[in-house]
């Protein structure tokens, strides 16, 4: 019976995290913040996976997926941050607008 009460909250949280993530990706120009926004989006997805496992009556499935995603996502974050470091080194800035040289 717990699941019924908590589910709306979880779903609301998923939407919030996703919304925040996408909104941040649309407006923020700082590269570190962009990586953080990506993390927020993926956290929303994690929550959704766990909740889905619960809903389908297969908690293990949800959790094992979530764990895998955490690993994979960390790798992406590390690569992203590493690139950010290099970009700071070469451009002297993390501002997306001022590193945008490739266009048209």
């Amino acid at each position: 019976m717990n699941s019924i009460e908590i589910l709306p909250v979880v779903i609301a949280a998923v939407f919030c995290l996703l919304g925040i993530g996408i909104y941040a990706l649309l407006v923020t120009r700082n590269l570190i913040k962009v990586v953080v926004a990506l993390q927020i989006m993926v956290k929303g997805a994690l929550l959704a996976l766990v909740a889905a496992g619960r809903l389908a009556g297969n908690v293990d499935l949800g959790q094992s997926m979530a764990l895998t995603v955490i690993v994979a996502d960390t790798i992406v974050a590390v690569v992203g941050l590493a690139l950010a470091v290099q970009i700071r080194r070469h451009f002297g800035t993390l501002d997306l607008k001022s590193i945008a040289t490739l266009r048209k």
Partner: protein
Amino acid sequence: MIATKTAFTLLIALPLVAAPLIYLIGRLVYRSGKAKNNPAGWLALIVLLLTAGLWVLLYLRKKTETLVLITGQVTMAGDAVFLLMSITAIALGLMVVMFSIFYMRAEPGEEKFYALLSANIGSIIGLSATTDLFNLWVWFEAMAVTTYLLVAFYKDLPGSLESGIKYLVQSAAGSALILIGIALVVAETGTLELNLMAEMLREPNALLLAAGGLFLVGFGVKAALVPMHTWLPDAHSQAPSGISMMLSGIVIEAGLIAMLRVLGVFLQVTNLFGPLLLGFAALNMLVGNLMALRQTEVKRMLAYSSVAQVGYILLGFGTAFTLGVSDGSISAFFHLMNHALMKGLAFMAAGVLIYTLFLRNGSHATLKVTDLNGAARKYPLAALAFSIAVLALGGLPPLSGFMSKTAVFLTTFYTLNPWMIALVIFAALNAVLSLGYYAPLVNRMYRLEASEAVKNGAPMPWLMALPLILMALLIVVMGFYPMLLSDLFIPAGVNILPYAGF
């Protein structure tokens, strides 16, 4: 002889396991100063040749037995789509390695390049063999991460870093959307097996529709559907040329195939995915061709042409998904293989020129269209290969591009649906438009006064000639005999619609 299962496991595992070995051996040997040149490239070549050998073994066995690999809860299936995608990746990889041994020589961290390339090919092989939704995502992510690193390989070049981070952010946002889609599907069905899922998904349902939409957009980033394509021109033009070949030739297509495998499950839920794919096809063709028309950098132009070519591939798959005719997907697979060949050759020939004109002279300059002037005077083979590649992309006979494009048009037209006929006319007009940028490239290379860059260019290394000749020859042969590889693309085309129930 080794058992089929072992061979199948090895085929998937070998490039992945070899990746760290290539890195370590390359680094250790090179650092110790025992070898004049880094052996990583040759190691990668050996690994890929072994992989290709395993593939041939499996291909022969496939005629008598089905290839299934079950480890724990994860099932891998060696179906026809797998065979096609994996050989395309392996063959293209072989060409890339042969070409890169000189191209990447003297780059710092050369061993990293080959290790990542090997891992990338391994993940594409894995991606094409999986039948499990979450597993698909994991392979997809592995492929993505290796490509981020490869795109941003020149870690001291601003353009390379910029395109790397753009690609990463866009692609990662897409893969977060895929995860949400997975969560929705799991909540509804409780399974990750695509086969099981297809049997359970029969009723339209808002959640499932949303999941399908998320998959379409999420995988669509990787497959470069317009308007999610914006990373592609940056990444393709800034990556090392060998990686441009991989990206354009197989990585975006792998994303597309992953998408289609998943969307195939949803065909009972709604019949809207076919028309949506066709809509993206039209958009891709138009935007890709128009954007390519005014480009001044060769690789960026080729990148936009990839956007347009994805449109042709989607046209075939869209037809298959709309009306359930496997002819559509057969011709789409034919064009997919052909595109790997043609675009691979185009990027390789451009890469040869970049190497001889710039890299050998210590410059990382971009290859401008005007640098091609008179290239045939000094580099007849590269110029000829480039001409063959772009004229094939433009769909002129007697080159393979003509055959596959005609096949796609044909299968779409065959439905005699007025909308489809209109789309074929639109696509044919687009093909004419594309000649507007392909043909002038060819004109430039012949007879014109050689550009400064060409005059100062270094001679072409012998090893680059081999893949150029091989690929050009294959394009011409398939132009005369299109059914050369039909044993691969016909079963694959039938295979991609297994769940559709048409």
